[in-house]
Structures are given as C-alpha cells and as structure tokens.
C-alpha cells in the first residue's frame, strides 16, 4: 500500500513496469491526491532510455556462418525391404521351450509315481486290515470252536459272519449245492430275498444296486440273511428279461470247489478258517474287484439264453448245468 514513506519505491517500480494494473492504478490515485509529488513522479517516468532513436546496427556478415551442405541431406539411404534373412527359423531359440517341456514331463512322471504310491499304500493298508481282520476272526473262531466244535462261528465284526454260519449250517444238513450258492451269495453280496414274482426292471435295478464284489462293509445289517435252504431252481424263461453276470459264475465255481474240497462242517473245526482263506483269496486284490465290477456292468446287458436254468439266490442267478 503506497504512502508518503514508500512512494518513491512505488514510483520507481511503476517506471520499471513491475507493478500490476491494480497497483499502477493505486499509484496514479496517490499522485492525484498529492499534487506536489506529481512532478517527481513525471521525472522518474521520463528517466527511461528508448532505443528507438539510438538504433545502431552492426555488420552481421562477419558473424554468420556459411550454410554448408547438410551432410545428412547429401547421402540418404533407404532400406531395401525386398531383402530378407534366409532361414530365419533357424535363428529361433528353443532352449526355454525345451526346458519347459522337460519340466512338464518330469512333473507328469512325478505325479504318476506319486499317485501310484498312494494307491499302493492304500491297497496295502486294506490288505493289512483284511488280513488283520481275518486273523482276528480265525483266532476267535479257534477259541469258539475249541469250546463248541459244533457251534457256528459267530463274529461281531460284520454281517459276513452270519452268512458263514448259515453256510456251515447248510453243509451240516447236507445241502451242499445250496451251500455253494450260499457261499457265493455270502462272498459277493448279502442282499434281500428276491421273490419269484420280481419284474425285470426290479431285477436289473437290484443287480445294479448289489455289486457282489464290494467290501464287507457294504453289508446291510438290517437285511435278512440269506436262506439258502429256500433257494430254488428258477426257470429263466419265466423272467421277462434278465442279466447275467459271468463273473459270478466263475466265482460260484470257485466256491463250489472250496465246498467239495472242504471236509464236513460239522466235524471240521477249520471250516471257518477255510472259508476265511477263500474270502481272503477272493478279495486278494482290490484291483481285481474293480475289474469284476466293470466286467459285470458291461456284461449286464447280455441277455441270458432261454434254455439256461438258474438258481436264484437273492438277486443273483447262478447258472445250473443240466
């Protein structure tokens, strides 16, 4: 803000052109308010040198440089795009891809080995569990048989023991053939008792539901135990459509062999052991069971011949040789 103490500075700034328009207006207003300072203000503004009248020129020719030809403009080359590098593909680097490819191979091989190892361990554990269970059963049976040689083998482990009891009982009665069927049924799957009046759809559904080679844990405890004594020869022709399981036939034959070679149950305290051994042999390989399952499913579509007779045990039809 201009006042009587700093007006001279503002006058010089005004002469130098360093004031804003608003400040210049305030200086002019101040001069109007103080007429005595107007002469000093005008003198300061006149103390400026104007180069217009003092225009002096210099000979510039001695200062200029000769415009030599631009070397960049004299020689201009343009690329010939028709020229290409031959065999460019040979220049590509493949090292990185090979490394990635090898890594993938190794990773895949490692994954396969790891999976196989897991499967082997799991299978080994199952076998060990089965063997331990069999050993427990055998020990218990030995104890019980020693105390009750005629008694049936009762085990609290699973429902399969019940089937074994029935098998033993059947053999005692003398119905070897039925006992074979019962063994087969007990080996493969305990199921509900099928009726003769079952329709084809029910039969197929039941067969699908009861895969005979599943583990013992699939046994339904609340189901009725197999009563082989009530087994009857069923005429296939009476059924509208059936499905045959060839693997069942083979296993039935094996069970039959076991029954033949086995001593009479009533007097043989090791019958349960033999049965256990048979079970163990049949369930030796989980892999075989998987194959059987697959085989059964694939062969379920096959129709049974009309002239073939079968023994119906639960939901399974065991062929009978004429």
């Amino acid at each position, binding site marked *: 803000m201009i006042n009587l103490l700093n007006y001279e500075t503002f006058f010089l700034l005004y002469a130098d052109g360093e004031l804003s328009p608003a400040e210049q207006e305030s200086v002019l207003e101040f001069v109007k308010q103080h007429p005595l300072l107007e002469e*000093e203000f005008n*003198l300061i503004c006149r*103390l400026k*040198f*104007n180069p217009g009248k003092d225009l002096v020129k210099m000979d*510039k020719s001695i*200062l200029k440089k000769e415009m*030599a030809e631009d070397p960049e403009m004299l020689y201009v080359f343009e690329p010939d795009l028709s020229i290409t590098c031959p065999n460019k593909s040979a220049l590509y680097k493949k090292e990185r891809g090979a490394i990635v490819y090898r890594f993938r191979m190794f990773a895949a091989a490692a994954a396969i080995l790891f999976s196989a190892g897991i499967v082997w361990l799991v299978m080994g554990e199952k076998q060990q569990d089965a063997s331990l269970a069999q050993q427990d059963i055998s020990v218990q049976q030995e104890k019980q048989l020693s105390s009750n040689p005629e008694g049936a083998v009762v085990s609290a482990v699973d429902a399969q023991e019940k089937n074994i009891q029935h098998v033993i009982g059947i053999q005692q009665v003398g119905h070897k053939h039925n006992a074979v069927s019962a063994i087969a049924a007990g080996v493969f799957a305990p199921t509900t008792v099928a009726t003769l009046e079952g329709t084809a759809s029910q039969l197929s559904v039941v067969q699908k539901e009861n895969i005979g080679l599943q583990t013992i844990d699939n046994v339904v405890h609340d189901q009725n135990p197999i009563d082989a004594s009530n087994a009857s020869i069923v005429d296939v022709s009476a059924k509208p459509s059936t499905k045959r399981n060839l693997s069942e036939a083979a296993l039935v034959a094996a069970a039959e062999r076991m029954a033949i070679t086995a001593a009479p149950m009533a007097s043989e305290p090791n019958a349960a052991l033999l049965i256990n051994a048979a079970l163990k042999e049949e369930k030796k390989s989980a892999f075989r069971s998987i194959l059987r399952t697959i085989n059964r499913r694939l062969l379920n579509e096959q129709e049974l011949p009309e002239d073939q007779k079968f023994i119906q045990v639960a939901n399974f039809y065991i062929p009978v040789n004429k």
Partner: protein
Amino acid sequence: MTEREYNDCVDAHADGVFRFILKNLQHEEDARDIVQTAFEKMWKNRASVVQQTSKSYLFTVAYHQMIDHIRKNKRVQLVDTFDEGSRVGREVSPDLKQELEKALQRLTPLQKSLVLLKDYEGYSYEEIGEITALNASQVKVYLHRARLQLKEYVGKLENII
C-alpha cells in the same frame, strides 16, 4: 542448435547485443569485438544452447566480456557520486536525452548495464539477475539507486536550467 538456427540468432539479436555493449563502453570497435566473441562462444557451444534461450545466453556472455574488458583496460572513468562542483560550468543542454546519456555515463558499469537491460531489452529483475549473476532483490536495489542518481542529476540540472 543447427547452423540455420545460429544464423537466425545473428539476425535477431546481434543489433541488440551490440547496442548494449556500445552504450556501456562508448567504443564501437570494442563493442564489435565483444559481440563477435559472444557469438563465437555460442557457436562453439551450439550443441548445448537452444534457440529459445540464445538471447539471454548472448547478453550474459557479452556482459561478462564487457566487464573483463573494462577491468583490463580501465578506459571508462567511473564516478559513483554526483557533486556540485562537477556540474558547475558545464554546458547545459535543454535536451533531456543528451543529459540522460551523460548521466548514464556517470553510472558504474553494473548500474549502467542494469538500466540498459531494463530499458533497452525489457528484461525482468529475474532475467537481469541471471545475466549479471545477481538475485532479483539486488537487481531491484541497484537499479533503483541508479535511477535515483539519474533523477538527482537531471533534477538539479533542470533546476539550474
């Protein structure tokens, strides 16, 4: 800076630089030499100088060349103050411009350069400070002192007239 740009700078700034140096030295040959030296120096450093800043570059080089020349030759008699005795008996000219020119020659080279850079070329305090290696406040103070001296000289002269 290309050769073409350099020649353009010669056309645009040679007269202004020459005028500035001539007003300071009051000697045409010396002023021409200083201007030529300034342009030669810019040509040598054309790779680092851009056309937009060539004017300030030329004035800066020329000013320092001028100061060096003055110190070397001591041709200009420097008078810092104006006393009554120096003006008594002097021929009085009604032409204010001539008096200003005479008053200008009584200033120091720095004050004279500041006045000419401000009035001839219209540089700001900051730009003048870059050329003369001073800050804006110093330029303002020195320039105001120079103008007050001019005012005092011309004012007393007018009173005498």
